[in-house]
């Protein structure tokens, strides 16, 4: 891979890895008596590996390829493999935490293996490890094709990808050591947060510079979403993670905000991590790979515009629906509820736009599991956004909040929408990138599809049942006006659903393992085939990046 970099680029990579290594050493020295020190050594190891890799090929001959006539796909390839690796780790952790709730002794006699410490490894592993790598990798792919231009830089995409994975490793290892800010989906401590800001700024600059090279007057809709994902996640991340470290030699920090303001900021972040990480970015994926695979143009350009700005504007208001009936002032709760309901319009506009795009290609959905992944993802997107708006209504929320219904809702979105669109996109793009005829085994793709779908359905139904049951039990009164059930009564009632949930998760995990296997075998064994017309060009005569409307 290093052979594609020029000598100057390899030197730059070397310098960056040395600088990272030195900051790792500084962390290790400063935090000797603290988890910060262990994180320092992890940084040293990571940067050291990159350093050795680069050094090994520093004197290799200069690349001879003509950069003007090809895309730069190496970071995309590595990113996709990393995404699948994280999927297996993150989902594996998910099955384990799920099993712990059914059988609490299914753990080691060690502090790191308790539910509280490994649960964020699951959430961060799937959201950031799997989702984030899938987003970064596909965004590199999509921005080049829709701009018909090569990536603007050869070191920066590596910096973004590897830097982001270093963040994920620091996050996951930190949770096991008890390093957490306790803010859900923003648990990593201050030094990891600062590192992510640096990575993210480079990502944004790379994106804008690549767009600036485009051979198309218009920026394609997928890129609007990727852009919104990059920008708004940066704002959310910086504001919600404002904190004062207790000392520069330790990991611990204290949030700049407290109480009600902290709660609002956290859920403004939390809900918009869903909006701009788990929705906007993946809509970018959907808007490119679904029409491409179906070979049909997007049904409506106008609808794309409406839903894009609707999602960007409305979503931000919705966070306070996580705080109904709490000490948050009523007016903020009401705003959150109102906008959450209105959000259904742009959400369904997106889902409908995707499904209408398939008109005329439904026979392909039937025959091609890859396209079916994307179709079902759009359906789950529609379903879970409907459910989300419904649950944001105050009266519904009084029942659903604090119960497994929320967990089920999140997983309908995360498994049914985010993971399925990612798998569909990966199956679509892997043969193209590695120049293979098809995937190694279409049967395994088919198996994966049904495992994933049945796993999701089992999971979601289990959580609907447990959530609604528990919510109702909590509020049931006896005829004499006392509460009918103790908390432990409700916990006992959850057990069968917790078992079912673990089973659903295990099916889903099995599918992800098959995907990783299938991709590796495709790279190693599938017959070769050079793709036609997959190169940057300003010529109108070549095939458009995505099918154009008639």
């Amino acid at each position, binding site marked *: 891979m290093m052979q594609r970099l020029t000598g100057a680029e390899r030197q730059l990579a070397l310098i960056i890895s040395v600088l990272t290594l030195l900051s790792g050493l500084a962390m290790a020295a400063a935090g000797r008596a603290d988890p910060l020190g262990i994180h320092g050594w992890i940084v040293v190891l990571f940067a050291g590996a990159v350093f050795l890799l680069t050094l090994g090929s520093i004197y290799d001959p200069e690349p001879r390829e003509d950069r003007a006539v090809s895309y730069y796909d190496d970071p995309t390839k590595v990113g996709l493999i990393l995404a699948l690796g994280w999927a297996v780790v993150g989902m594996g952790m998910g099955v384990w935490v799920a099993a712990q709730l059914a059988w609490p002794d299914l753990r080691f006699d060690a502090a790191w293996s308790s539910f509280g410490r490994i649960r964020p490894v699951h959430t961060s592993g799937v959201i950031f490890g799997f989702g984030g790598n899938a987003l970064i990798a596909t965004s590199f792919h999509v921005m080049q094709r829709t701009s018909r231009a090569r990536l603007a830089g050869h070191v920066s995409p590596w910096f973004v990808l590897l830097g982001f994975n270093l963040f994920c490793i620091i996050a996951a290892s930190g949770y096991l050591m008890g390093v*957490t800010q306790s803010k859900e989906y923003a648990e990593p401590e201050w030094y990891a947060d600062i590192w992510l800001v640096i990575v993210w700024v480079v990502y944004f600059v790379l994106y804008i510079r690549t767009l600036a090279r485009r051979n198309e007057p218009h920026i394609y809709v997928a890129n609007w979403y990727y852009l919104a994902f990059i920008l708004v996640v940066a704002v959310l991340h910086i504001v919600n993670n404002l904190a004062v470290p207790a000392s520069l030699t330790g990991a611990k920090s204290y949030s700049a905000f407290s*109480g009600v303001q*902290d709660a609002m900021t956290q859920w403004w972040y939390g809900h918009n991590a869903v909006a701009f990480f788990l929705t906007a970015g993946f809509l970018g994926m959907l808007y490119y790979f679904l029409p491409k695979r179906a070979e049909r143009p997007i049904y409506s350009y106008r609808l794309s515009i409406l839903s894009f700005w609707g999602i960007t504007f409305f979503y931000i208001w919705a966070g306070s629906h996580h705080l109904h009936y709490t000490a948050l002032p009523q007016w903020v709760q009401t705003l959150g509820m109102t906008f959450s309901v209105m959000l259904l319009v742009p959400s369904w506009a997106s889902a409908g736009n995707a499904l209408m795009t398939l008109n005329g290609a439904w026979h392909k959905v039937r025959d091609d599991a890859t396209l079916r992944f994307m179709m079902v993802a759009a359906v789950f997107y529609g379903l879970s956004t409907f459910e989300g708006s419904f649950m944001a209504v105050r009266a519904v929320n009084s029942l659903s909040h604090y119960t497994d219904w929320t967990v089920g809702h999140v997983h309908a979105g995360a498994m049914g929408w985010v993971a399925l669109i990612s798998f569909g996109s990966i199956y679509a793009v892997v043969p193209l990138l590695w120049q293979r005829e098809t995937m190694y085994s279409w049967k395994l793709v088919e198996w994966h599809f049904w495992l994933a779908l049945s796993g999701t359905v089992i999971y979601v139904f289990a959580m609907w049942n447990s959530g609604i049951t528990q919510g109702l039990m909590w509020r049931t009164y006896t005829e004499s006006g006392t509460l009918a059930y103790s908390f432990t009564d409700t916990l006992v009632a959850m057990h069968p659903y917790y078992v079912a949930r673990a089973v659903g998760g295990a099916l889903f995990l099995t599918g992800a393992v098959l995907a990783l296997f299938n991709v590796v075998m495709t790279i190693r064994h599938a017959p070769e085939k050079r793709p036609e017309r997959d190169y940057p060009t300003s010529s109108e005569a070549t095939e458009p990046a995505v099918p154009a409307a008639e």
Partner: protein
Amino acid sequence: MLRKLVSPFARLFEFQARTHYRAERHSMALTIGIILAAGVGGFVEIAPLFTIDETVEEAPDMRLYTPLEQAGRDIYIREGCYACHSQMIRTLQDEVDRYGPYSLAVESKYDHPMLWGSKRTGPDLARVGEKYSDDWQVQHLIDPRAVVPESVMPQYAFLLNAELDTENLPDRLAALRAVGVPYTDEQIENASADARGQAMPETDGADGLVERFGDETNVRFFDGRRDRVTEMDALVAYLQILGGLTDLPAETQPAREE
């Protein structure tokens, strides 16, 4: 009639589509548009919470966490207890009947970060303080299923043997003061000794602690061990103060007549 109602919206969409059509040829126009569109909601909902006085009630008797309680709170966060236990009783009758008066904003005024939580795999803990004895809490943390057979909570027996690191407490309290908790210089300087004193009754440390944090402060052998101050001491001290920082909720919400 319908046409008249719809037409302003139709014109708005037309305008939006035209503007967008021009903007999507410029990456910076899109960038600015996204930041503006996404900026409004957060600003309108969050900024006023810092300026409107009624957002947080006045509670003159509101007290601060002692160094030991704060250390316990840090352990609560470290172990991820917030993933299964909320600390926010909603304004719903069944919650008030089950857990006590609904939570007020002022109660988490000094909580950096707040631990309101989002899921109750276990019960709410906002008012768990002094609901159970120290001994019950310790036994329950060592082996939850020995006390509550149906429980799915992890065991935390290791806390009983983990000596509490009190050296870092002055730094921690100073950082908390930097973000707005009104600790005095004295409280910060003596944080380590005060933490040990709270778990060692009838020592000089305990006297100093009471002097700096008030007579109401709990001074006990929280974990039952008299030889040293453990993480168990800190966590139990924290659990026992939950809901006890101010009397305002009990005063403003009289118990329901049966």
